[in-house]
């Protein structure tokens, strides 16, 4: 099967970032939190390809380490929302009736909250650790996946091969896990890829407001907020983390669009 260009480009971008993140200790030229008071706010140079920040820390190293945080938050948060969404959606779609109504109304209730403010409130009450952020993003973003799975299963469960599976004596759980979900997962993966991009953006926004990943651990969002004070003199501290976020989101969107084309969905 030939892969379309969009998918290739997306995989290349995310693959590159993934390798950077995994190999961060070997690739990054400096320790990300190494303070060098002789090199404050130096513009991009040979020694510091992306310059340094107001504490003299090397920006390239901080962005490479930031990729670890941002990517893992994106992937784990979406993993959590996939888990909840798939379970809730498949139970709702398969059982129908009251169970369906209860689960989907729960989804509607969560959907009604302005997610960002809910996350802000929760993070303000609990401490804003990386784990908390992953979990809270996961817990507030499963509804779309649940709805998608439910609608897929509603139509799939009327298909003849499901009746055939019943006729050979398969149990409900077996029918859901073995026969329904593999047929329903395509659009869900597309949705989840977009979800990763969304989660990364959300984490950056949280960090920017100071409620995300806490310094000195570098994340793209909190590098950005630190750059705010020196924006007038050091453009590079704002530009490069912003660019990193932009390219990552673009990469995941490319993958999502590419998968959609590859599998022939026009959703």
């Amino acid at each position: 099967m030939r892969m379309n260009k969009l998918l290739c480009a997306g995989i290349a971008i995310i693959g590159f970032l993934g390798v950077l993140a995994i190999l961060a200790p070997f690739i990054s030229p400096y320790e990300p939190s190494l303070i060098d008071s002789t090199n404050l706010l130096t513009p991009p140079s040979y020694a510091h390809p992306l310059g340094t920040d107001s504490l003299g820390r090397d920006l390239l190293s901080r962005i490479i380490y930031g990729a670890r945080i941002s990517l893992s938050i994106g992937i784990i948060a979406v993993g959590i929302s996939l888990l909840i969404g798939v379970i809730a959606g498949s139970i709702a779609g398969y059982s129908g009736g009251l169970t369906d109504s209860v689960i989907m109304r729960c989804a509607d209730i969560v959907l009604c909250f302005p997610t960002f403010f809910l996350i802000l409130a929760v993070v303000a009450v609990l401490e804003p650790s990386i784990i908390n952020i992953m979990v809270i993003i996961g817990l507030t973003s499963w509804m779309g996946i649940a709805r998608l799975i439910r609608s897929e299963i509603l139509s799939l469960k009327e298909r003849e091969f499901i009746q055939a599976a019943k006729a050979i004596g398969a149990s409900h759980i077996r029918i859901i896990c073995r026969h329904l979900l593999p047929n329903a997962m395509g659009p869900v993966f597309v949705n989840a890829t977009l979800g990763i991009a969304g989660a990364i953006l959300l984490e950056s926004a949280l960090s920017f407001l100071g409620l995300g990943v806490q310094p000195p651990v570098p994340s793209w969002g909190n590098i950005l907020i630190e750059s705010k004070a020196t924006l007038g003199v050091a453009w590079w501290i704002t530009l490069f983390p912003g660019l990193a976020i932009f390219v990552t989101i673009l990469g995941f969107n490319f993958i999502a669009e590419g998968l959609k084309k590859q599998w022939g969905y026009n959703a």
Partner: protein
Amino acid sequence: MLEISNLRVHFDLNGTIVKALCGVTFGVGPKETLVVAGESGSGKTVTALTVTRLLPASARIISGEIYFDGEDLLSLEEDALRKVRGKEIAYVFQEPGTFLNPVYTVGNQIMEPLLLHQGLSRAEAFAEALRLIALVQIKEGRRVFFSYPHQLSGGMNQRIGIAMSLACRPRLLIADEPTTSLDVTTESEILDLLCELKDNFGFSLLFITHNLSIARRIADRICVMYKGVVVEEADTERIFSSPRHFHTMELIQAYQAIGTL
């Protein structure tokens, strides 16, 4: 062996009650081939599905009894019934392509009932599945085993369907218009195959069709359904020599009309 008596099934379609079966009674003996014939909507398929309660959620079994080897299937718990489905009573359905799951190889799907009911290991199930594929007279069994349903023809898929239904050596095979979507030559091959397998395995066959020429070819007895009731039940010979109900005559005429073309 299978005794259905006074079976009444209604469908509740958003408040509108549709009476699908209005007191169906018939039986299938050991190693017998009973053909249930009738026009569309006469309740043939509903009867077949009711035997192991595979009906959609909107169906209500109003009254009746279904005994299989003395066991009351209608009062059986869902768990116990699951052990009957596929193991004691197996189905072959009409559209072979759509009754196979598109995401698995056909071999994988033949293995499923073996793994579910026989407690075989995957290696044993694989060997048995290959044997079953050979049994339904498919050459190049290995290649077919690793094919997906969309890569095979309708006749081939129906052979796979038959292999799957015979996997656990059922005592009753319910075939719901298994050849309707196939062309005539393939239909003929599938019918020969079913009859041959029936002689070898010794299962009873409940065969549903609207086509009396098929019925004449394979049936020991024929049961004619019309509007949710059995209107005539007799030996194949008697049905054709002296049909008593007007619907039986209609079906015979329909098949004779095609026969003279």
